[in-house]
Each structure stands twice: as structure tokens, then as C-alpha cells.
């Protein structure tokens, strides 16, 4: 029974180009002063914590380096000289060093995470608030998943840098310098011999880092194809079985699966070559100490304690080097992430309130489009010279083919977008002169494919009026003919709604959204009729509910049902951005123009039970 005077469900305004996932390769700069200074502004309030954390870092690095030296003293001065008291003292000193080391690093870590998480929370809240304020045009052209990743991943990597990265950098550099200085002081010759291994380690680390990045990207990519292939096949299992194509699909999956396995093994192999290599280089340093140190001790040029201390310091070389190389990647990611977050934060709402904007007074309901021209992208006008006046309480049906501009007209009345030419007036007031929320608060919008939020049915009906009483919610449901099916549910109004309303039929979703609009009691109603038809009984319920909702309100309906169209006070036929015909059903039929042609073709070919 759906009378569809030409449209499809894709009438979604700007459509077309979505801002994609962008380049996820973080090959950007390591340091971007602008990004860093903007980001540091978030940390500023926590200066005291950051400074304390830094001081604690210095202390723990120093204490970490002290322990091997204490052992050296124990061997050289006390054990060799049989100084029992001194040995007790050293043991005590070591104990103190350890306690200090772990206490200071624990406090430092906690301080950093505390600061980091607070900054993170603030940034995220700010981003989310900003997202709510951004105009619909932004959301229409950005993929939700990508926006979410701004809020999570990008903010996350910035935090990694701000709270952990910078301190790690300090700690690693200090540790490296400390080791070098102490070793040089203990024995310059042996120290220099040992250091010959360091460049090898650095080179090995760098080579690995470069290859690993490629290899791990490959594992991520192949894993994504396993997941993608699988998701697709699960979704299309009916088609696969219907066409008896299990074999072909299986082969394809196995190919992807094997590629993933091989990529994993390859990536792992790299680290298995790398880890032992670096370990080996570390032990090479040990061998150097043993060989030259051993000879030096034999010739009494060196004490035994020095060798033991050297052996201990040598093992500490590698970790800072590896961390520093990781830090390089972290910095790159943080700069790229920071840039993306800033870009989002700096996106100004495309439909801003004027500073002189006033609250919209109580609406009577007269809507006027005066010489309206509009384009989503400047070069492609969507609407031209649209003139339309709707008196209070009138219903106007917009009909016309897909892409004609019906949705755009409704978007302009709700001021989701601003006109490029002319003006939209409500009760004679230009909608650009009032605060948009005060305008929309008095408007009701029922989109074609209404979205239900997770929560209970009552929450969803209450969406526009969070303070409404239970009684008011029930009344709205009654008005919307939704009470009957709601009361049949075992949890009634407290029934939980699954992701996007998946547990309700299209018809039920529409009834709920009508209830939502009824409760909000708007003066002006914008209705995008659903194109997918529901069974006859539900159809009647929806029709009846809409009639009640429309009564006494100004309504603009993007109409697909014959009943709605015939019911309207005015019908506007939109084609290619213009109003080509305007009048009541009877008038337009009599005129014998576009409308009549559409009507006859539709009515004859596509009315259904």
C-alpha cells in the first residue's frame, strides 16, 4: 500500500564524499611545536605533579645506578679487607637504595598516570561536547568510527607522550649518561672498550624498528582481511548456501587465513632474530669485560669489584636504547594524533549562532521560505529560488524524485544548515537571528529511519522531555498508538532497546518515534515518511497516530504515502531544486502536469495490499 511518488531511501542531503579513514601511517614529524604547545596547555594545571614526577625520576635513575656500585664497594673494600662492619653498612645502604628506588618509581608512576588520566578525561569531555555542538553537516560527512577513534586512540597517544613519553625520555637519557659516566670513572679504558658495542646495538635496533613496522602493519592488514572476509561471509551465509558456493568461499578464506598465518610468523621471526641479536650484543660486552677486565685484574690494574659492577652495568645498557627507539615512534604517533585532535577541536560549527542571537519566542507556526537558494558544496546548488509559505496548522507535503531537494528543505527549516541565499522565516523572524536550540526546542523532527537509543522504551519516549512523568509518557504512547504493543512486552515501558532498536520492527520503531514527538509537543513538525512499508494493520495504526500528531501543528512532510499526500493542505512537487507545482491533490490532478503523471503511474503500477 505504499504510495511512493518517486523517492528512495537515500535522500540524505549532502551524501557523496565521506571523509575517510585518512592515512594511518604515522610517518609524520617527530616534533611539531604548535601541537606540543597546544597540548602542553592541558598539562599546565598539573605542573606541580609533573615536576615532582620528574624529580622522582631523577632519584630513581640515580638509585638504580647506585646498586652495582655499592656491590663493587662491598667486594673491593669490605670483603677483600674483611671489614664486617662495613659490609653491614653496605647491606643496609643497598636495602635503603632499593626501598628508595621502588618507592620513588611507584609514586612517580602513579603521579604520572593520575595526571595523564585527568588530562585525558578533560580532553575527551571537551571533544565530546564539541562534537555535540558541531553542525549536522559535519556528522553527515564523517564516518562515526573515525570520529570515535579521534576521541579514543588519538587522545590516547597524546597522553602516552605527555605523561609517559617525556618522563621516559628523561629517565632513559639520564640512565645512559649515568652508566657512561660511572663506567668511565671506574675504569676509562675498559669503559671505552665496552662502549664499542653500543653503536652496534643502536644500528640493530634501528634496522629492526624499520622492518618491524612494515611486518606488523602486514599482520594487521592480513588480520583485517580475515575478519572482513569472515564478517562478510557470515552476513551472506544465506546467499552462499543458496548458490551452493561453500567450496569457492572456503578456498578464498583459506587463502586469506594462510596469508595471515605467514604474516604473523614473518613478523615474529623478525623479533626472534632481533631479540637474540641484541642479547648477543649485550653479552658481547660481557665477553669484552671478561677478557680485558680479567687480564687487568690478573695484572692487578683493576679490582675484582669493578668487574662485577661493570658486568652489572653492561646489562642495563640496552633497555634505555630500546625504549628510546620506541619513543621515536610514540612521538610520531602523538604528533599525528595531536594534529587530528586539534583539527577536530578547531572545526567551527558550520551553523553558528550569531552573537546577537536571541531566544526564539513561543512559535505560532507560520513558516516562510523566501527566495531560498542552497548548496552543500559551493559549486553544486541543491535548491534554487524556493518560495513557500506555510500557515500555522497547515500540512505541506513535499513530493518529487530522489535528489530533488526535499530533505534539504526540511534541513533548512530546522536550521541544520544555513541557506546560501534568501531566508527562512518562522513567524516572520529570520531563523538565523535566534539561538538555534531555542528554535529546535519548539520543533519536532521525525526522520525516515528514526534512531532509537540504547536504554528503555520510556527513556526513548522521554528523549525530548527528560523530566516528563510516567503518566505523560503513557499518554504520549497512547496518542501514538504505541501503548498496545509496549504493554504486551514483558517489561513494558522498561524494556531495554538493543543497538539502534534492532529488537523492534520498523513499524514499532516508527510508532515509538511518533510518541517521542507527541511528548515533545512541538509547534512545527518535520516528518520524513518511511519508505519501507509495514503490514496493513500497523500501517493503519501509524496513519492514525500521525493524523493525531499533525493536528493543530504546522507540518512539513516528505511524503511517500498516498494517504498523507491527499491529506495535505498543499502539495509541493520538487524537481531539480525547484518547486515545479504547488496546490491540493485535486487541483494538481486537474492541472494534468508532473504530479498527475507521477500519480497515475504510481497508483496504477505500485499500489499493493
Amino acid at each position: 500500500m505504499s504510495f511512493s511518488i518517486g523517492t528512495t531511501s537515500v535522500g540524505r542531503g549532502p551524501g557523496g564524499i565521506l571523509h575517510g579513514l585518512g592515512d594511518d601511517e604515522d610517518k609524520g614529524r617527530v616534533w611539531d611545536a604548535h601541537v606540543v604547545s597546544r597540548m602542553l596547555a592541558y598539562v599546565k594545571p598539573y605542573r606541580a605533579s609533573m615536576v615532582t614526577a620528574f624529580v622522582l625520576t631523577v632519584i630513581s635513575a640515580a638509585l638504580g645506578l647506585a646498586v652495582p656500585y655499592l656491590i663493587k664497594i662491598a667486594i673491593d673494600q669490605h670483603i677483600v679487607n674483611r671489614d664486617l662492619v662495613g659490609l653491614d653498612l653496605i647491606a643496609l645502604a643497598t636495602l635503603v637504595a632499593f626501598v628508595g628506588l621502588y618507592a620513588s618509581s611507584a609514586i612517580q608512576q602513579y603521579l604520572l598516570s593520575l595526571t595523564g588520566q585527568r588530562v585525558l578525561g578533560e580532553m575527551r569531555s571537551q571533544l565530546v561536547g564539541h562534537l555535540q555542538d558541531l553542525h549536522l553537516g559535519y556528522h553527515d560527512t564523517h564516518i562515526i568510527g573515525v570520529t570515535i577513534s579521534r576521541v579514543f586512540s588519538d587522545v590516547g597517544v597524546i597522553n602516552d607522550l605527555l605523561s609517559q613519553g617525556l618522563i621516559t625520555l628523561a629517565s632513559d637519557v639520564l640512565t645512559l649518561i649515568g652508566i657512561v659516566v660511572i663506567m668511565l670513572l671506574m675504569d676509562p679504558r675498559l669503559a671505552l672498550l665496552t662502549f664499542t658495542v653500543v653503536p652496534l646495538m643502536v644500528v640493530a635496533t634501528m634496522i629492526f624498528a624499520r622492518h618491524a613496522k612494515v611486518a606488523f602493519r602486514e599482520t594487521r592488514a592480513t588480520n583485517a582481511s580475515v575478519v572482513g572476509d569472515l564478517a562478510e561471509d557470515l552476513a551472506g551465509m544465506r546467499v552462499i548456501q543458496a548458490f551452493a558456493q561453500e567450496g569457492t568461499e572456503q578456498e578464498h578464506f583459506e587463502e586469506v587465513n594462510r596469508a595471515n598465518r605467514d604474516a604473523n610468523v614473518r613478523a615474529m621471526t623478525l623479533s626472534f632474530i632481533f631479540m637474540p641479536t641484541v642479547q648477543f650484543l649485550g653479552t658481547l660486552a660481557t665477553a669484552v669485560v671478561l677478557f680485558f677486565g680479567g687480564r687487568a685484574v690478573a695484572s692487578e690494574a683493576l679490582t675484582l669489584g669493578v668487574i662485577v659492577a661493570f658486568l652489572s652495568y653492561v646489562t642495563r645498557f640496552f633497555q634505555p636504547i630500546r625504549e628510546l627507539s620506541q619513543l621515536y615512534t610514540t612521538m610520531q604517533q602523538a604528533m599525528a594524533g595531536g594534529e587530528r585532535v586539534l583539527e577536530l577541536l578547531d572545526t567551527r560549527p558550520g551553523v553558528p549562532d550569531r552573537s546577537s542571537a536571541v531566544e526564539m519566542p513561543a512559535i505560532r507556526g507560520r513558516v516562510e521560505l523566501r527566495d531560498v537558494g542552497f548548496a552543500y558544496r559551493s559549486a553544486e546548488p541543491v535548491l534554487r529560488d524556493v518560495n513557500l509559505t506555510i500557515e500555522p496548522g497547515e500540512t505541506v507535503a513535499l513530493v518529487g524524485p530522489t535528489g530533488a531537494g526535499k530533505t534539504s528543505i526540511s534541513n533548512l527549516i530546522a536550521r541544520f544548515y544555513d541557506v546560501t541565499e534568501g531566508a527562512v522565516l518562522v513567524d516572520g523572524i529570520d531563523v538565523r537571528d535566534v539561538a538555534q536550540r531555542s528554535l529546535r526546542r519548539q520543533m519536532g523532527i521525525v526522520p525516515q529511519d528514526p534512531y532509537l537509543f540504547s536504554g528503555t522504551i520510556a527513556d526513548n519516549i522521554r528523549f525530548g522531555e527528560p523530566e516528563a512523568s510516567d503518566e505523560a509518557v503513557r499518554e504520549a504512547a497512547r496518542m501514538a498508538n504505541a501503548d498496545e504493543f509496549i504493554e504486551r512486552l514483558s517489561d513494558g515501558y522498561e524494556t531495554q532497546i538493543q543497538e539502534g532498536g534492532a529488537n523492534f520492527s520498523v513499524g514499532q520503531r516508527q510508532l515509538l518515534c511518533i510518541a517521542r514527538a507527541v511528548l515533545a509537543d512541538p509547534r512545527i513538525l518535520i516528518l520524513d515518511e518511511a519508505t519501507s512499508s509495514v503490514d496493513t494493520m500497523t500501517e493503519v495504526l501509524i496513519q492514525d497516530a500521525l493524523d493525531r500528531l499533525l493536528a493543530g501543528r504546522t507540518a512539513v512532510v516528505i511524503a511517500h504515502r498516498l494517504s498523507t499526500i491527499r491529506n495535505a493542505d498543499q502539495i509541493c512537487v520538487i524537481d531539480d531544486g525547484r518547486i515545479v507545482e504547488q496546490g491540493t491533490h485535486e487541483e494538481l490532478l486537474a492541472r494534468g502536469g508532473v504530479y498527475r503523471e507521477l500519480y497515475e503511474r504510481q497508483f496504477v503500477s505500485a499500489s499493493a495490499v
Partner: protein
Amino acid sequence: MKTLRFLFGYTRNHRFPLIVTVLAMSSLTAVSLVEPKIISEMISIVKAPFSTSVGATSFAYVPSSNFIGRLALIGTTDPSRLTMLDVIGRLAFLALVFYILRAVLTFLRSYAAHVAGWGAVADARRDIYRHLQRLSLRFYEDQKTGDLMSRMVNDSDMFETLIAHAIPDTIVNVLLFFGVAAILMGYSTRLMLLTLVPIPMIVFAARGFTKYVRPAFRARQKELGDLNATLNDNLSGIREIKAFTREDIEAERIGAHISRYRDSLLRALRLMATFHPFVEFSSSLGTIVLIYFGGQLVLQETLPLEDLVAFFLYLNIFYQPVRMLSGAWENIQHAMAGAERVAELLHEEPDVVERHDAVTLPERADGAISFNGVSFRYVEHQPVLEDITLHIPAGHVVALVGPTGVGKSTLASLIPRFYDVIDGSITLDGHDIRDLTLRSLRQQVSIVLQDVFLFHGTARDNILFGRPDATEEEMIQAAKIANAHEFLDTLPEGYDTVIGERGVKLSGGQKQRLAIARAVLKDAPVLILDEATSSVDTQTEMLIQEALERLMVGRTTIIIAHRLSTIRSADAIVVLEGSRITQTGTHEELIVQDGLYRQLNEVQNEIEPRYVMLRERRRSAAQVVV
């Protein structure tokens, strides 16, 4: 235990890498145990004859009785002729050899373990995939795709964790611990026992770590999931939020989620900041024990200095296993749980099974279909179809009519055996469909569904889906019949344009026509059509209608019908109500019967006169308001 057996079943194909793993692992443990000995041997040399001058021939090397001593002497017949420098050189060289050996063994161990691990993962995924394809659609009814995906991807990954990490780590660590303990005992039982003192503390701290810190991180993960879902919900409904001016309330609501997430993370981090240093600290207590007690023993000359140094060197590898094992145990449990979920999925019995003696239908069936007293239900005690008897002669068009949820789609799904009947039987050209091979049965049936599913790939791939070996001409012919050729031709790369979610987006009408082309090319004698309910623009509508009519020619067609025109032109209309057929006949026959069909028609007619009445009512209401 069952799970373990199941898991080890998957290692069978990877026996060789696993044997290499075990061998490399044991050798690695041995090598790790030897290294400190070389150093202590060296120290015993340089320390002993402090009076002896370097290079003097009077130096007499007395090698330790252990095999390091023996290894150091390889290639010399007369150890007494070695200078001290020679021995140091030899020992340093020996150390180097061992280090190289360790590097090679480490590589071998990890590599072989991962080849086995990822191999098992790939095998498991292949088996799951194969199994999923065998399961009937009934199985998919009550499974969330997300859950299946996670079993397939995340749970099977656990095989790798287990085979390549958890199990080898556990074995290596146990070996290491006892190996070190034995060696240390050889040096000094007393000192070894003293170094055991911090172990209960380490165990305690490590247990605390697994008991409190990990769950806290899991809780954080859950909060993150919640936050993610909330934000997704918010952004999906941004139009409604703006329409109802809920921006501030929403920002606040998500802000609260963000704070909750932050707090759960901070709690986890606070716990970690408490336990982690504690674990570290308990491990370092050993160093203090050594300095204090070990130093005393050396002073009392009950322990040689080189042995004390060896103690220092062994200490690191002594405590490491204790710390690791507590984490490894959790990993194993975790992995076992994953393996169990995989096993559960693999043990799911497919309920549409081919008979052993199933026959293959000859090339092309005539297409006569009979339902003989068919009953069906998805869930016990909730019959969807009861006692359905229906004979469709070859080439006839049958329209299924009835309220939503009445089982029209179910009835159609029984023909290609997506589900099996509970009672009664369905025959195709007189063969019970359960006696046919699934493949030959499904080759006789084409299905064009309302929501068209296209695979990621080119338009060509999608049309050829059912008959990959069709020629170019056949494909184009099919596209022409389906009225799809024209728009396909205008696509940037014609038939080779990648379509679907990640490619060029097609409109609903275009997808429909592509699906029709797919069915045309398949050329099956039986056609199941779920008439599209969502409307497309008039021209498209007519194109689709035309294509469908061409497709229906000469085929037995079952249409789940919504359009009056379709229903009127059907050879027979079947009205379903509740779970039974209540009316059968042509439009003319049914319209004169007192039944649902007439009611449906009447509702349609009744809506007409209401227009005028409603418009009047609304106008009068408006006047009151204005």
C-alpha cells in the same frame, strides 16, 4: 582435560616444529645455567695467584673439576704450559661460544614455537570456517555475528598463546628454577636456602598482582567498551539529539562515562603502582641477602669469592621463574577458556545433513513442488507452520500473503532446505528433497531477497557468483535481462567496478537488479522471490518489475508478495494466518470469500474516504490553536 586433548589434536600437524621447540628449550635452559659458571671460573683464576705475575710460566692452571674446566683445556695436552692470559682468553672465547649458542637457540625456540602456534591457529580457523558453512541457517538465527567472529578470531588466537608462549614458558621456568637451585646448592646449601627466603614474598606479591591488578584492568576494558558503545550510540543518533536539543544532556552523560572510565583505569593503575614495585622489591631482597650473609661467608672463608659472584649472577635467573609462573598460570587458564569456546562451536551439530545415499538430481528439474503436511518450528512449542499442504505445478506462480511474522519467508526457506521440516515432507519433481544432495537441490533454486546481499568484489564477481564459469556473453545477456546492463555500463570500470561497502555504493534499485542478474545467470527452474517493500523511484520500480517478470517466465515461482498487481496476476494466492494456510485460490475466488484476504482489501479501500474527514478534523483543530 577434554579441552587439552582437543587442543593437542591441533598440534599433531605441527609435530616437527614442536619437537624442535622442546629440544631448543631444554638446551637453552642448560646453556643459561652454564654461563655464570664461566665467569666464576674466570674469577677463581684471576683471584687466586695474586702474587703470580702476568705471563709468568710459573702459573699453574688448576681447572675446576666441572666440565667448564675441561672445555677450557680443549686442544692442549699440557695445561701447565698455559699462561694465565691464555686461560682468560680461552674462557672469554668459551663465553662467546655459549652466547652465540644461546642466541641461536633462543631464535630456534621462538621460531619453531610460533610456527606451530600460528599453524594451529590457522588450522583451527579453517576448521571453524568449514564447520560454519555446514551449519544450517537455524544456527545463525540465534547467534550474534559478533560472538561468532570473536570465537573465530580471538578465541582461536589463544591456541597461539598456549602453544607458543604459555606452555613453553612454564616448562622453561620450572626447569630453570630447579636447575639454578641445584647449582646454587652445589656452591653453598646454606646460602641457597637463605636466598629462598624472599620467594614467599615474591609469590605473594605476584599472586596479588594477578588477583587484583589484572581484574582491575579487565574492569577498565569493560568500561571502555561501554564508553565506546555510548559514544557510538550518540553519534548515530546525532540528528535526533539536535532535533530534540539534547546536546548538553548528552555531553554530560558521556562526560560521566568518561570519568567512570578514567576512575576505573586509575584504580587499576593505583593497584599496579602498589604491587609492581612490591614484586620488584621482593626480588631485590635476594641481593641484600647475598651481600650480607654471602659476604660473611666469604669473610669466614667458608665460601670462595668467585662462588659469591656466581650467586649474584644466578640470582636474576633464580627469581624470574617464580614471577613468571604466576602470570603463566593465568594465561593458560585464559587460553583454555578460549579453546573451550572453540570446541563448543565445532561440536555444534549441523541440523541439515545430507544423507549418505543422497542422489544427485539430473541437470535440470521441471520444478513441480509439493508440501505434504509440513510442520515447522524454530523453538519448541511455538509452531511456525502447521500441516501445510500445497501443490505447485511446474511453471506456476504462487503468491504468499499474510500479516508480518506469519511464516511466509520460513515457508519459502524450506524449499532449498535452509531448514528441515519437523513433520511431513517437501518434494521436488516427486523426490523428497531430503533424498537429494544439498548441492544439486540448491542448484535448482534461485532466491531474490528483499535486502540484497552483495559481496565485496566486482560487479562481475557478484553476477557470476552462482556460475563462475559462465562466458562473458552469458553474463552480459543476464545483466540485460535484469535491466542492469545499462547502469553497469556507466560505472567507472563497467563490470569490473568494485562494489559493496568498501567500493562504489549502489542504490537499492541497482542492487536489486544485480541480484536479479545473478539469479538469471543461475537459470534455476525454481524461483523464490521476496518482493521488495521499500520503494524506489518510479522508473526504477518499473525496471525491476519488468526484469522480474522476464525472470519468472518458465519457472516455478513462489513470491512473498506485497503488491496488488503481483498478487492479482498470480496463478494461485496462498493466505497464511497464524501457522496455517487459511485460504487458497485466485484473486477472483478469494475476494468473494469471507476471510482475511477480503479484509485486507477492505482496509485498503477504507482508508480512501477517511482523507477528507481527517483533513477537516485537523483544520478545525488548527483554528482552535491559532
